[in-house]
Each structure stands twice: as C-alpha cells, then as structure tokens.
C-alpha cells in the first residue's frame, strides 16, 4: 500500500497533491520530497512505525552498528556533498548516542538533520521506558530543535528543519517525534513555504563595509588572507583564489578551511595555528592586514590572543554576526555570505602585488619547510605514510581523518586542492569521527575515492562500523596510522609532563587485521617503508568494498612545529621539524 502512496516521481503536479498518510508515512514522504536519498539509522521501540514506513520505501537506509556512527556518517555525507545529512534513532539511549555526533556537527557548522523517536505524548515527562529529554539535552548543540506535538505539524516541521540546517551558517537541527504522532493519520501536502520570521540570515554584505575592506586591502603592504570552513560551506573557494591572485594575497587556512585554496598554490601558506607551518604563523604575526573569511579565531588558531596579528588591521567576513568580535577585536566587520561578499570585493580591488612581502614569505618558506627526520630504526614515519597516500591518490581523494597526531600530519602533508575533500572533526575534536564520516562521504560521493586515515586510538572508538561498511560494500579505504599510543596525549605528556606516560600506551592490542577480517573486511599489515606503496595500491584497487591497512609507524614521532598552549604563534617549538 505504501509503495503506491510514496511518490518518488519528482513530478511537480503529483508532488503538491494532498494525500492521507500516517505520521510515519508522512515522515518518509517529507524526506523524499525534501530530496533526501540516504539516511543513517538504527531502529528501536519508539521508531517502529517509522521503520515500518521505511521498509520497501525508495529511501536508502544504512543500518549502522551504533547510533553515534549514524550521526557521524550523516555529517560526513553532508561535508562531502554539501547536501544535508540525515540520521534517525530511537528514543532514550538511541537519541543520547547521537549527541556526540550532533555536537561535532554543531562545532563545525555541518548541516545534519537528526530525527529521534520519543515515547508517546502522554508518557513524556513521566520517566517512561527509554525516555530522554533529547530536545533539552541538545539545546546548546543544535541550531534549533523541535518536538512534534501534533501529527499535522510534521510536514511543516520537517520542511523548516531542513531549511534551518542548510540556510545561513549551516548547523544541526533535531526533530523529536513521539511514537503516537507517527501513528496518527493526517492529510499530507508538500509545500515549499517556510514561515520563520525569526530566522533571516544576512547574505549581502554591507556595501560601505565592503568598500572599506577594499580600501584596506589596496593600502596594505603585508596582507594575509585567512580562510575557514565558511569558505567551503558557501562554495567560495574559486573566489578566494581569484581574490588572492588579483591582489597577491598569501593564503593560510584553518583545519576546516583546508581545500578552500589549493595546497600547492604558490600563494598557499598551509595551515596556521598550533600545528600550522612556521611561515603561516610568521606571516600572520607580522602582517599589517588580516582578512578573515568564514573563520572564527579559534584558540587553536590564534594561540595567545594578545600577540595574535598584533600589527594588523583585521577584516572579518562572516555570515554569523555573533562571530564578529567574539575572540579578537575587528576593525572592519562584514556580515554576509562569503561567496556574495567576495564576489563584490573582487570587483572593488585592482590588480597589485606586494613584492617585498611576498619575497619575505618565500624566504620563510625556504628557511622553515615542513620536514621530518627519518627514524633511525627504519620504521615508517607517519609523515611518510601521508606522503605515500598522497602519491597513490594523486592528491585527488576525499580523505576523512580522526583526531590526534595523524589528523595534524594529514593536514600538514596532504596538499588538498579542492573543497569538500578533507573531512575532519575540527571544533569538537571527536575521536572516532573519521571512519563513520568516511562511510557517509563514500555513499554521498560514489564518484570519488574515499580514504579514512585513522589513529589506532580513534579507530577503536567506532571500529564496529567495519560491519556496516562490509555489509553494504562501501568502498572506504581505512588506513590506520598505528603507533600503539594515544599519540597526541603521549606527545603532550612527553613535552609538558616530564614524559610520564599516564594511560596513553594502548600498544597491547587488538590485532586490527584480525579485527577487520572478523568483520569481513580484507586487511593487511605493513611494517616496513618499502612495503607501504604496494599495500596502499592494493587498497586503492579495491572497488566493491572496504579494505583496511594497519600501518605500524614509528611509535614516538611528534607533530612539529608546535605552538605550546598559552604561547604566541611566533613562539613555536620544533621549527626545524624536530626539537634538538
């Protein structure tokens, strides 16, 4: 019966026609009308009617093995495609398991729409079985959330949820649906209308501010362009490049801004901040004009605030007015969409090149290139691992990473050239993000090769998803940068805690090759640099399912350069690539 009711024809006339549906059927129909093709979820008591409606519907439902992975996969899907990612969980523990994933999406402004079941309306607030106040719990980590109190509201709320998640600064939205709402019958009719008088993001920048920004750029002798995730979400990468090339701007990017400017471009400075390049940090410290686009001056980026860009006038272009002046004083704020504002700004500036400044930057690049020492014992250096992945993929892959040392090495050594290719948890720093996010990315972008570079600690936080990848034949290539440590924790303990390695040695297992094979995922282990290329090529060649390569790397390699906590960007240690 449902097959007939669900209209997936995309026929405009059919689409607007009112039909009688149950709340659960209306939910499925609304997602389809919204253009959703894939959802990540896990069933349970409160969402049984919804799962019944999903059964044999045209929606592709990916059954994960833990709800956290559903949220991360939806997030990875969103980051890789630019379209909203959708996840679904049952009430109580199902809903709370989504929380880390929602918070991850919130911190990185990713458009995730999370649906949770809840107990029937008359049971809410009475500590019913598997009841949790998920809207209360997710209040500070969602852009907005809803409880559906009447079945009739469901279509409107779903429409609004997608609108809010994807409009302005993107972010996660949660919709909590009591079970009895999904059983009620309603008249469903698709509508494009959204009536949200309290939600009107500013896309157009103020013309006077843009003029002022243009004047400041023309007057600057030592300008730097500093881009963040906003460039990716607004699709402004091509305009960043145009602006940079027109006025000769060196470009540095945050972890979230990677891919917003080609990493191997002569004007690219690489990432800035705690593990940024020396030349990016020097350029920001010495510049007389810092142009921030879609970036939020995170503490990992700025280091000590009072010495950050202290000689510079700051232009801040951001769609979110609450970001302006949050962490640093801003001289020229421009509230607006990065793409819209940059397009205007490019028209207002004329071609120029500050040769002296660019020359200085070239000198810094020569003096402090990113580099590392070979391991005396001949082990694989983790930086070499990243270089080899780059070589095998030709720099064209989508690479998702987890959190820790490997994440920083990937950011430093893989020169990403296109937006939505680098997928990583920046703001929240969620270990266990990379693998499920990679699964989501692979499903969203079947045209791209998707790799997951994981740490051995991070990977174990969501390794149960090996089964998900195996069952659906999702072609993700998992490379575990395995040093048997919580490497970043160990590095900090070495530097700041007299090498007292409290609970950071996880070298006792498990055997990741056996673990992968137990889940039905072909796997290999590599211990020697000479074997690495062949193993990565073997992984690259597999088309129809996941593979895992367990790469044993030099155990005690450190991420350098590094700005110690509380220091200014200029006071880096390990500028040469290591500490003498």
């Amino acid at each position, binding site marked *: 019966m449902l097959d007939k009711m669900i209209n997936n024809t995309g026929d405009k006339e059919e689409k607007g026609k009112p039909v009688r549906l149950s709340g659960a059927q209306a939910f499925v129909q609304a997602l389809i009308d919204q253009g959703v093709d894939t959802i990540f979820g896990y069933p349970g008591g409160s969402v049984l009617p919804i799962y019944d409606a999903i059964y044999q519907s045209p929606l592709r439902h990916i059954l994960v093995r833990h709800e956290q992975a559903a949220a991360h996969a939806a997030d990875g899907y969103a980051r890789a495609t630019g379209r909203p990612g959708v996840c679904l969980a049952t009430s109580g523990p199902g809903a709370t398991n989504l929380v880390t994933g929602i918070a991850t999406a919130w911190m990185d402004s990713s458009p995730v729409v999370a649906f949770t079941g809840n107990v029937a309306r008359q049971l809410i607030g009475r500590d019913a079985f598997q009841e949790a106040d998920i809207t209360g719990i997710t*209040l500070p980590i969602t*852009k907005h959330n809803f409880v559906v109190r009447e079945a009739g509201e469901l279509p409107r709320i779903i429409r609004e949820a997608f609108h809010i998640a994807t409009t302005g600064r993107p972010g996660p939205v949660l919709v909590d649906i009591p079970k009895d709402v999904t059983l009620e019958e309603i008249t469903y009719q698709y509508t494009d209308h*959204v*009536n949200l*008088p309290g939600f009107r993001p500013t896309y157009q920048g103020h013309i006077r501010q843009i003029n002022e920004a243009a004047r400041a750029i023309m007057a600057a002798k030592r300008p730097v362009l500093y881009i963040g995730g906003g460039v990716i979400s607004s699709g402004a990468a091509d305009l960043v490049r145009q602006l940079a090339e027109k006025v000769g701007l060196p470009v540095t990017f945050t972890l979230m801004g990677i891919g917003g400017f080609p990493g191997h471009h002569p004007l690219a400075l690489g990432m800035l901040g705690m593990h940024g390049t020396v030349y990016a940090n020097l350029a920001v410290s010495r510049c007389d004009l810092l142009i921030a686009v879609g970036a939020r001056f995170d503490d990992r980026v700025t280091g000590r605030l009072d010495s950050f860009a202290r000689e510079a006038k700051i232009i801040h272009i951001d769609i979110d*007015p609450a970001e*302006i002046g949050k962490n640093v004083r801003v001289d020229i704020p421009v509230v607006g969409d990065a793409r819209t504002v940059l397009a205007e700004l490019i028209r207002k500036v004329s071609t120029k090149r500050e040769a002296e400044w660019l020359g200085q930057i070239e000198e810094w690049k020569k003096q402090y290139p990113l580099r590392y020492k070979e391991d005396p014992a001949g082990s694989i250096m983790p930086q070499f691992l990243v270089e080899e992945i780059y070589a095998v993929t030709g720099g064209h892959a989508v690479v998702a990473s987890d959190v820790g040392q490997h994440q920083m090495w990937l950011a430093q050594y893989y020169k990403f050239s296109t937006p939505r290719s680098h997928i990583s948890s920046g703001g929240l720093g969620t270990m266990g993000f990379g693998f499920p996010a990679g699964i989501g990315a692979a499903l969203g972008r079947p045209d791209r090769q998707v790799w997951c570079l994981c740490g051995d600690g991070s990977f174990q936080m969501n390794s149960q998803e090996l089964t998900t990848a195996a069952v659906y034949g999702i072609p993700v290539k998992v490379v575990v940068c395995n040093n048997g440590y919580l490497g970043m924790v160990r590095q900090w303990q070495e530097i700041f805690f007299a090498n007292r390695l409290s609970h950071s040695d996880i070298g006792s297992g498990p055997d990741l090759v056996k673990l992968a094979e137990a889940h039905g995922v072909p796997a290999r282990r590599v211990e020697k640099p000479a074997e690495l290329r062949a193993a990565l090529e073997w992984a690259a060649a597999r088309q129809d399912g996941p593979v895992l390569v367990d790469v044993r790397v030099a155990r005690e390699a450190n991420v350098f350069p590094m700005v110690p906590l509380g220091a200014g960007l200029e006071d880096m240690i390990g500028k040469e690539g290591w500490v003498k």
Partner: protein
Amino acid sequence: MKHILSLIVLNHAGVLTRVAGLFSRRGYNIESIAVGITEDPNVSRMTIVVDGDENVVEQITKNVHKLIDVLKVSDITHDDCVDRELALIKVTANSSNRSEILQIVDIFRARIVDVGEQSVIVEVTGDEGKVDAIIQLLRPYGIKEVARTGMIAMVRGTKMQKTPSRRVINI
C-alpha cells in the same frame, strides 16, 4: 554594568530555556526576567536585567538574536524608557504599628491589599529604586515575604519595538 534587554519572542514552549541557557553558559546570572504576551497573542515580550561586561553581554545578545524563536532583541539600557516593577511585601503589623506602616505606604503611593491579625500585604509599583526604598523602610517592622515581578520596560515616545512582519519565504 547593568543591562536591560527587551526581547520579542514567539510564544512557544521552551523559548525561555533557550534564552536563559545562553546566559548561564557564560556564567551570567539573570537578575530578573519578566515575560508576558503582547498585543499579538502569538508573541511575547521578555524583559531581562543582567549585570555584566559590555562585550560579553553584546556577544550573548547576538546569540540570543540567532535563536529561531526570537524575533527581536534590543539593548535599551541607554534608551529613554519607562521601567516598572511590582512587588508584594508581607510585613509584620499589629494594632500598635499599623498606622505607621500605612503612612509609609501612603508616601510611596503603594496599597495595602490584605490585612491579617499579625501582618499586612503591601503592593507597590515603581522603578527598582522605589521598590528597594520601600522595602528598606518596612524592614524594621519585620518583612515576612517579598515577591517581585522583575522589571518590565518600554521605550518612551514614538520609537517602537515592533514585531517584524511575518514573511513567507519561497524557495
């Protein structure tokens, strides 16, 4: 310094929690908050009094403004506005001092709204200073209970904090 924020919000469940949460996250204690519906029953006005650093309050205010259920936020601290608060004060009173209390009540143009054998309830309306002053004067008689509404405020003259017109976005 003390800030007076005037908000126009949608009359929904949960709006108060969303607004209050943004203040508590930064460790700011709301001194008073008063909410009531406006000329439009779908919309409420919230008056918040909060003490804090200018920049932090400004940043919180911007975040409040981002809430989907919040239609308008104004910091009216420096505006010329009328602000009022209502307080009910239960004072110990017996036949010997009741007339003295009545005198104080008269001076403040307050009212006695309940008389018991051992106490009276005084209702007073005014700005914060006036309410503080009468409480101060009544204190020696023995205050048993105080209930204050918190401040409500409105900008004087023709300047209005209007509800933005509803707009339907077609995508």
